[in-house]
Each structure stands twice: as C-alpha cells, then as structure tokens.
C-alpha cells in the first residue's frame, strides 16, 4: 500500500516537472503562431508515449522479478542519481537554475523569427511541439515504466503521471502563462530522492541483498537519501547566481 502510494507520488512529481517545461514551449508556440499546430503536435507525442507505456509496462511485468529488479532497478538508480546530482548542483549554485520565464521568452522569439507558411499546416509549430513533448515525456514514460514494473503497479504509476498532467494542463489553460512559480528544482530534488531510493532497494534485491526489515527498508532508504542529499547541498553550498532558459 505504502509502496504503491510512493510509486504514484514519484510518477506524479516527475510528470509535473516535465509537463511544466513542455507547457512553456506549447504556450509560447500557441500565443505566437496559433493553437492548432502546437496542440496537434503535443497530442500526437502524447499518443506515442501512451502506446509506449501500454506496450512496455505489461511486457516488463512478465520478466522474472529478480532479473527485472536488477536490470530495471539499476537503470532507475542511475537515472535517480542523475536527477539528484543536477538538483543538488542547481540548489547549491553550481549550475544555472531553469527559468520558465526566460525559456518562454526565448521560445516566443524563436517562434516569431521562424518563417510562416501562407497556407496549410504550420510545420514549425507542429514539429517543435511534437519533439519537445516527446523528449520531455520520454523521461516520464521511463519513470512510469520502471517504477510500475518493479512494483507490479504500472497502472498506478501511469495514474500518477496522468493526474499531474491534468493538473498542469488545467492550471496552464487558466493562467495562459508559464508556471514560473512552480518550484521545479525542489520537485526534481524530491523525485531524485525517490528514484534513487527505489532504485537502490530494487537493484539490491535483484543482486541478492536481504534488506534489514524487508519492505520497511525502503522507507529508511528514502529518509537516509534525503538526509545525505540535503547534507551534500549544504556542503557544496553557495547561493544561486545565474539562471538559464
């Protein structure tokens, strides 16, 4: 039960981070070049991602659990450590913080500068929207598939991603502006902590480790990972100085 809740939360937070970035690009295209092509591109990319999760999720659940946990747990651990590394470097001022306002302004400028067809489909808006939604969504799909397959709960992980998607889209439609107030790096930090903990737990089990306390060790790993991630941020610490689009 707790494991499923954590899978739901992990997928939802990861999805929220990536959806906020995608929303910025689709909004920039929509307000400068019209909504039709950007929305078509985003919907087409989402359809590809849904098919990917629907095919790979159940297929992975059929793999023997020890092999699955070792291989997919290792990938999740590497992926989670990369997210955490980036979030710690940003939080400690060693890497530029992602700025949705700057990203929006850059995207609007690029969309205005690009040529526009007099008739037919706006290929620029369609392709940029499709590509950005697909690229950002791939990370979400990877997280949904790996978290879901290891826990035997692909549906729950997918539900978490869909819930975050719905919230971000509703807020985006209401405000029609980049969601620059969303604490993206904090969300990324939280997702990194969860993916690293899940990855270490499952990859360890796949490698033959008997965790003290069995399933309860997952909760302890999350607390420990959070503690050392905060400690590392402090040890590296200096105030953020720069922002990047």
């Amino acid at each position, binding site marked *: 039960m707790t494991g499923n809740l954590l899978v739901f939360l992990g997928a939802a937070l990861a999805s929220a981070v990536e959806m906020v970035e995608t929303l910025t690009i689709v909004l920039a295209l929509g307000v400068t070049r019209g909504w039709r092509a950007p929305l078509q591109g985003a919907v087409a990319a989402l359809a590809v991602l849904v098919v990917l999760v629907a095919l790979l999720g159940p297929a992975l659940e059929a793999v023997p659990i020890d092999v699955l946990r070792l291989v997919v747990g290792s990938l999740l651990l590497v992926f989670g450590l990369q997210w955490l*590394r980036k979030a710690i*470097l940003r939080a400690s001022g060693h890497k530029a913080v992602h700025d949705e306002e700057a990203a929006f302004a850059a995207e609007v400028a690029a969309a205005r500068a690009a040529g526009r067809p007099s008739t037919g489909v706006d290929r620029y808006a369609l392709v940029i929207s499709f590509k950005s939604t697909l690229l950002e969504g791939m990370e979400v799909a990877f997280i949904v598939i790996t978290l879901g397959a290891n826990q035997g709960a692909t549906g729950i992980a997918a539900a978490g991603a869909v819930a975050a998607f719905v919230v971000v889209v509703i807020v985006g439609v209401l405000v029609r502006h980049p969601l620059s107030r969303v604490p993206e790096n904090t969300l990324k930090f939280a997702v990194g902590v969860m993916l690293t903990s899940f990855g270490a737990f499952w990859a360890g089990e796949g*490698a*033959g*480790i008997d*965790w003290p306390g069995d399933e309860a060790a997952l909760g302890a790993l999350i607390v*420990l990972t959070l503690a050392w*991630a905060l400690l590392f941020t402090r040890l*590296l610490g200096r105030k953020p100085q720069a922002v990047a689009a």
Partner: protein
Amino acid sequence: MRSVIRGIVGFVVGDDIWIAVAVILLLGTAAALERLDIDAWWVLAIGVPAALWISLARARRES
C-alpha cells in the same frame, strides 16, 4: 543505428558516466559478497551516497 544507441545511453547515463560505472561496481560487489554469505546491504547504503559525492565534487571542480 549508432546514433540511436548513443542517444539511449546518453538518456540513461546523463551528464556523468562515473555514476553508471559506480552503480555497476557497487552492485557487482554486493552480489559477490552475498554469494559468500556476507550481508551486503551496507555496500549500497554507503556506496551510493559516496559515488554521488565524488561526482558532485568533480562537477564543483569543473565549475
């Protein structure tokens, strides 16, 4: 094909290949110890944060 493989590796491995190498080494060590009937949970509990710290320290030097 080569660029596809490079893309997939880049997607998973990310900015620092050291992290992926460290994870493989840690899991290999843990599996070997478990085969010798030695509890190995501590290898990951200590090794994972150590690997991240080394990667962060390298990034700090480069920045």
